[in-house]
């Protein structure tokens, strides 16, 4: 520790609290910003000095995360969730209304510095939207009435702590429980069973369960754990990926809210299996409001000897868990980007191989598992691997939590054994007159009506949990365009095809939406999609093409009706470009317009 001759500055105190470790940079930036409102150039210089790292590194990280501000934001900073399901509930109109009431333009700060309003990607409140984040806290169930109240509270500068508690109510909305959500486990019960069985027997049970990762990729958990257990290096690490950023997914939010013990117990079960002593839960910034309760749960588990040294009296079984916050970056859900972020860096996916099981957090063997996957290991420890494998399908054992939102009567969480048909899910959530379902979020698959017999399982329709329903009143072009904008916004920018391809795709979709599309644009879109799929560095870029590929294939008329009947149509509008000249000359008569674009023509 550095000794201070003068009392440390606020930045110095925060850096001290993090042990002056450079790999805590992201956590330091988040806390400094809590204190100072934004990260000014001078503050960035101070952080670099306190952490003894180059200033350029601090600036690089600060500029990567959406919730870190290198320019001032309003004292009230409101971010409307911009996922398609919130759009369908009128979020854009609500945001426009709030902007006009508070006299502020989207994305700008009001002149008095009071308020700024912008959009953000899905914040995991799709079943109780439209929703927004105000200074990082989720505010649900927006309506015009609620927007009026918010405008008033902001205008009077009422501290957020004094806003009606009802605004911040977040419900679990669990509509169907199965093995996991029906579990009533005393903390430590699964751990006692696994420790009692012994390390090797516990791994055998996990293997017998054939549990596969619930974060989307579906890698077999036992294979991952064994590879980490067998990797060289004594200082192994368990990481829980709670960066649930896939649009339309919110099941991890519910698990962290109501079953945090099972999640932490799963992490401890993993530590027991692989021989890890350190654990990290990477919590997406949008779920920061859950942090105090999660810290309390950890403290309770330490008091019960479920964490710490010699867990449950087992000599040498030392393990503890720390919670790290994300700061608004979907790409950090990719496990190697998450590890970079945990190390206090920009969330850029790494080159693989090597894989995290051998070279993970700080180069150490690391298990990275999804929240739901870890919670499910408790079921296996309690009831055995075979019992777990008895439900589901051959390649997809156990159950799956679905986060259902969009056009249905009962949005929320539904737990089904794997293999459930899409039409059964639609029936249960009260959906009718359905045109399409987006399974697996923006990166997933768009299912048309003729595919509703298909089943949720790794061997048919895999999903991390998102299930967004669109009835016949919706335009699937708008859905795809929303997802394209999402990927362009969330691309980390590391590789050429994703950085530029997602931005080009966004431009192409805008051109179509504005009525300037031509056949050639569809060809360009298909070509960009191919480059994204083939050449991208990670799954984000590869998946960024999915929504357009699927909707072009299954809902092509919605694209074609937007085309002019020409082969080529420039995005450039010559008449609009003359507007500046018209303003300068004070003319707006017909002769000041191109012949075929005169007003009223």
């Amino acid at each position, binding site marked *: 520790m550095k000794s201070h001759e003068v009392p440390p500055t606020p930045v110095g105190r925060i850096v001290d609290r993090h042990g002056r470790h450079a790999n805590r940079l992201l956590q330091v930036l988040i806390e400094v910003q809590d204190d100072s409102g934004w990260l000014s*150039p*001078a503050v*960035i*210089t101070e952080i670099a000095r306190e952490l003894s790292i*180059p*200033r*350029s*590194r601090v*600036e*690089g*990280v*600060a*500029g*990567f995360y959406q919730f870190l501000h*290198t320019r001032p934001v309003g004292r009230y900073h409101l971010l409307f969730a911009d996922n398609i399901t919130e759009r369908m509930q009128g979020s854009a109109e609500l945001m426009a209304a709030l902007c006009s009431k508070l006299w502020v333009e989207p994305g700008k700060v009001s002149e008095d510095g009071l308020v700024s309003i912008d959009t953000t990607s899905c914040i995991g409140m799709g079943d109780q939207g439209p929703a927004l984040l105000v200074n990082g806290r989720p505010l649900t169930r927006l309506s015009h009435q609620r927007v009026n109240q918010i405008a008033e509270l902001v205008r009077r500068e009422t501290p957020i702590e004094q806003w009606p508690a009802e605004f911040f109510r977040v419900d679990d909305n669990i509509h169907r429980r199965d093995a996991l959500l029906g579990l009533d486990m005393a903390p430590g019960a699964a751990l006692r069973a696994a420790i009692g069985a012994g390390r090797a027997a516990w791994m055998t049970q996990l293997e017998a369960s054939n549990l596969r990762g619930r974060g989307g990729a579906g890698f077999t958990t036992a294979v991952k754990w064994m590879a980490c257990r067998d990797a060289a290096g004594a200082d192994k690490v368990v990481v829980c990926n709670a960066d649930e950023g896939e649009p339309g997914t919110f099941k991890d939010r519910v698990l962290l809210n109501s079953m945090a013990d099972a999640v932490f117990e799963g992490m401890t079960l993993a530590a027991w299996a692989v021989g890890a002593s350190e654990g990290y839960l990477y919590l997406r910034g949008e779920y920061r409001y859950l942090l105090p309760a999660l810290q309390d749960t950890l403290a309770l588990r330490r008091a019960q000897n479920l964490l710490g040294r010699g867990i449950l009296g087992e000599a040498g079984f030392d393990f503890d868990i720390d919670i790290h916050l994300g700061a608004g*970056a979907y790409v950090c859900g990719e496990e190697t980007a998450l590890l970079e972020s945990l190390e206090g860096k*920009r969330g850029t996916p790494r*080159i693989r*191989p090597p894989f995290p099981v051998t070279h993970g957090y700080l180069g150490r063997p690391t298990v990275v598992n999804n929240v739901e996957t870890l919670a499910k290991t408790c079921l296996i420890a309690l009831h055995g691997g075979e019992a777990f494998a008895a439900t589901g399908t051959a390649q997809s054992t156990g159950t799956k939590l679905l986060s259902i939102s969009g056009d249905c009567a009962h949005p929320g969480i539904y737990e089904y054994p794997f293999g459930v048909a899409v039409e059964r899910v639609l029936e249960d959530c009260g959906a009718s007159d359905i045109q399409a379902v987006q399974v697996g979020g923006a990166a997933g698959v768009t299912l048309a009506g003729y595919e509703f017999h298909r089943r949720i399982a790794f061997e048919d329709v895999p999903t991390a949990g998102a299930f967004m329903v669109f009835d016949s009143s919706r335009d699937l072009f708008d859905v795809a365009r929303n997802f394209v904008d999402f990927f*362009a*916004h*969330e*691309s*980390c*920018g*590391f*590789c*050429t*095809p994703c*950085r*530029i*391809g*997602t*931005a*080009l795709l966004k*431009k192409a979709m805008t051109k179509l939406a504005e009525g300037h599309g031509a056949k050639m644009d569809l060809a*360009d879109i298909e*070509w960009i999609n*191919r*480059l994204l799929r*083939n*050449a*991208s*560095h990670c799954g984000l870029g590869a998946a960024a093409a999915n929504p357009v590929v699927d909707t072009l294939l299954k809902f092509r008329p919605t694209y074609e009706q937007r085309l002019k009947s020409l082969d080529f149509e420039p*995005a450039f509008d010559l008449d609009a470009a003359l507007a500046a000249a018209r303003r300068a000359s004070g003319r707006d008569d017909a002769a000041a317009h191109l012949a075929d674009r005169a007003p009223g023509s």
Partner: protein
Amino acid sequence: MSKQFLFDGRPVRFEEGQTILQAARAAGHYIPHLCWHPDFPPHGSCKLCIVKVAGRHVSSCALPAKEGMEVESNTPEINGERRALVQMLFVEGNHFCPSCEKSGNCELQALAYDLEMMGERFAHFFPDRPVDASHPEMLLDFNRCIFCELCVRASREVDGKSVFALTGRGIHKHLVVNAESGRLGDTDFSADDMAANICPVGVIVRKRVGFATPIGARKYDDKPIHLVDMEDGK
């Protein structure tokens, strides 16, 4: 006996631990690249070095060679995709070759010629990227940046200065320098740094030596990059 794989149908020997690109180069086969440099570990961001292995696209700079692999590189399909990646880089920045001091010595321009790029195909972004002329010896023209991070890596790992870093993300990613003012003149950057001499395009250029070598007598003026790059051992 060393192992071998097939590169465009021809056998290539490799040592354990070599990447596809390293082994191919050692055997005299050129693979296009922008962010790869022999002095640094693979970066894998430009994706110009993509090849096809067992039907899948991989970055040849990063993937270790394996016995019996069948690698497709110099094919119309892969070169078509490489050409599109170069086109993307051209529309992302502001690249005006005729007025650029790096013309003829520029790897991006040379690759565009070599890959037979006839136009940019995609709509230009025309980003607003002011130049930085604050340093007495060196000029930064961010308009030409392709985000290979060679200057970032050279300054951090060789010069020990971390003069450069990337900030922002997605299409808004951009290069910054290690100074609160944001000006290169306020850093400890020197024209002798490796970072000052590694830019494959025309971002980091020396002042007062413009056109010392006339157009026509420059690195890629006589021969295409796939020959020059293999000759000078880079």
